[in-house]
């Protein structure tokens, strides 16, 4: 039976999650140099274009048709059979369920782009996004949500710690290794060009995350209310701990650190949101800050140019959230099961198993996929193009164009028209 309240909330939640992708675009674009602003944002826009189509064509079917152990079926290819009838186990139309889950696939593809910005060519990225959304995301979504071996084996993942957070984080590491570091990495200071974009993006991401976590109960029931509230509590605690860590390390709490902390907190509560009590969610927020902070500090000292720290923010915090369920899940709150702390030690084993196989799968498949694409077409722009900037070389536009010295090309004159500027001596 369709429930109108559930359906109304899930319509809104779907729109909220879709908004997270342009929000991520802002977050990412602020973190890169000004000459790469548009290209960075465009990778997120491209994720919407590509992943939405692959999801409708095959991704949804592989993730959610049937309960095969490793992969779903082909029954919903091209959205066949996806109608107004309720999705099994929910009171919302399957069509809406498909749309909600599609927005997850989109944002996850966009997340991975953070590893390769400022150097990867746009065309190969489109190809990568299309294949990755099927070979990695849809498979992991099936394992975690679609009745695959992790879910049926007892692993709990409320809103995507497995496919979204660990899936993107460890794929990002592989992508950074295959594509290679930016040419100036480790030689010059490569600084964020607009901290306000970063903060604005983080704020909008947090807002969207209420749909992401609050919608993952697929209803307006207790689990959704719990996850929604935990999405408020957990990142707030991460922020506080991040301030303290920043002050210990550099004596000042930084704004870009705060934006990062918001993301880390939201990521950590993603898998655990509907399973742990509000009190434990606050502890999770505090605990999750530490490993992500450490990974960022460590990564920047290596030659691994995982440019926007997807591994630290998403892979690491997602892993922490998945493991946290194993300790602190509480049946009294979630009605599903307990963690080690409440008497079910096996739960921790299931969670730890998922925290091993997910990173391994994401890393290996992404590594192989990019190597394969690299056989057919160069993954990166030339050094010269990288120096000029990806906005001009990939898109023929600039984010901060002044118009000074711009000469209008009228259709009559065409590109070969009279040169209106002096020839150099």
């Amino acid at each position, binding site marked *: 039976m369709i429930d109108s309240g559930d359906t109304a909330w899930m319509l809104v939640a779907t729109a909220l999650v879709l908004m997270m992708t342009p929000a991520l675009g802002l977050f990412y674009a602020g973190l890169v140099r000004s000459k790469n602003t548009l290209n960075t944002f465009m990778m997120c826009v491209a994720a919407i274009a590509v992943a939405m189509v692959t999801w409708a064509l095959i991704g949804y079917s592989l993730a959610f048709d049937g309960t095969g152990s490793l992969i779903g079926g082909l029954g919903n290819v091209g959205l066949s059979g996806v109608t107004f009838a309720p999705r099994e186990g929910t009171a919302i139309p399957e069509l809406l369920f498909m749309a909600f889950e599609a927005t997850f696939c989109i944002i996850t593809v966009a997340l991975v782009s953070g590893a390769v910005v400022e150097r990867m060519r746009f065309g190969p990225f489109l190809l990568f996004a299309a294949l990755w959304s099927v070979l990695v995301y849809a498979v992991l979504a099936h394992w975690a949500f679609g009745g695959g071996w992790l879910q049926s084996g007892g692993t709990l993942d409320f809103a995507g710690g497995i496919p979204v957070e660990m899936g993107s984080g460890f794929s990002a590491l592989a992508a950074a290794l295959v594509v290679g570091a930016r040419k100036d990495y480790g030689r010059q200071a490569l600084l964020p060009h607009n901290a306000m974009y970063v903060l604005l993006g983080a704020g909008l991401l947090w807002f969207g995350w209420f749909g992401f976590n609050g919608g993952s109960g697929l209803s307006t029931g207790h689990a959704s209310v719990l996850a929604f509230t935990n999405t408020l509590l957990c990142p707030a605690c991460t922020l506080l701990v991040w301030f303290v860590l920043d002050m210990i390390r550099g004596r000042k709490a930084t704004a870009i650190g705060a934006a990062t902390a918001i993301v880390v907190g939201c990521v950590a509560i993603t898998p655990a949101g509907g399973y742990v009590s509000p009190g434990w969610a606050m502890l999770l927020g505090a605990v999750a800050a530490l490993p992500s902070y450490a990974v960022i500090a460590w990564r920047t000292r290596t030659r691994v140019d995982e440019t926007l720290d997807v591994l630290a923010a998403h892979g690491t915090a997602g892993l922490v959230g998945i493991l946290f369920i194993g300790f602190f899940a509480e049946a009294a709150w979630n009605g599903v099961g307990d963690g080690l702390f409440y008497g079910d030690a096996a739960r921790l084993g299931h969670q730890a198993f998922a925290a091993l196989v997910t990173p391994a799968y994401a890393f290996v498949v992404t590594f192989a996929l990019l190597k394969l694409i690299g056989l057919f077409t160069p993954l990166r722009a030339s050094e010269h193009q990288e120096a000029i900037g990806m906005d*001009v070389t990939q898109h023929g536009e600039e984010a901060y164009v002044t118009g000074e010295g711009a000469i209008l090309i009228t259709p009559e004159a065409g590109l070969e028209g009279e040169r209106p500027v002096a020839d150099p001596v």
Partner: protein
Amino acid sequence: MKLVIGIVRPEKANDVLEALYRAEVRGVSMSRVQGHGGELERVETYRGTTVKMGLSEKVRFEVAVSDDFVQTTIDALCEGARTGEVGDGKIFVLPLERAVRIRTGDADADAVTPVDK
């Protein structure tokens, strides 16, 4: 005393600074300018409006040096800024009439010679 002006690619600005520091040329000003040399214009399109970008972003270094340091400075600018492609920029050397260090009142050659604190 000469004023050495170097107009270079923005993406080479850091390399130029590095080269100048290595050559122990300490006093430098830089500013962002737009210029046009012999390079091909970029064609950009904004919602159907196609334009040729006649001016390119450049970075302009100004270095006031004593006569002994002119060649060193020119060499450093060339080393840092050269890619071999059209658009690497130009160096101009101008005679400099006077220079004053504001803090101490040092004049001319003393003013453009770095002092150790």
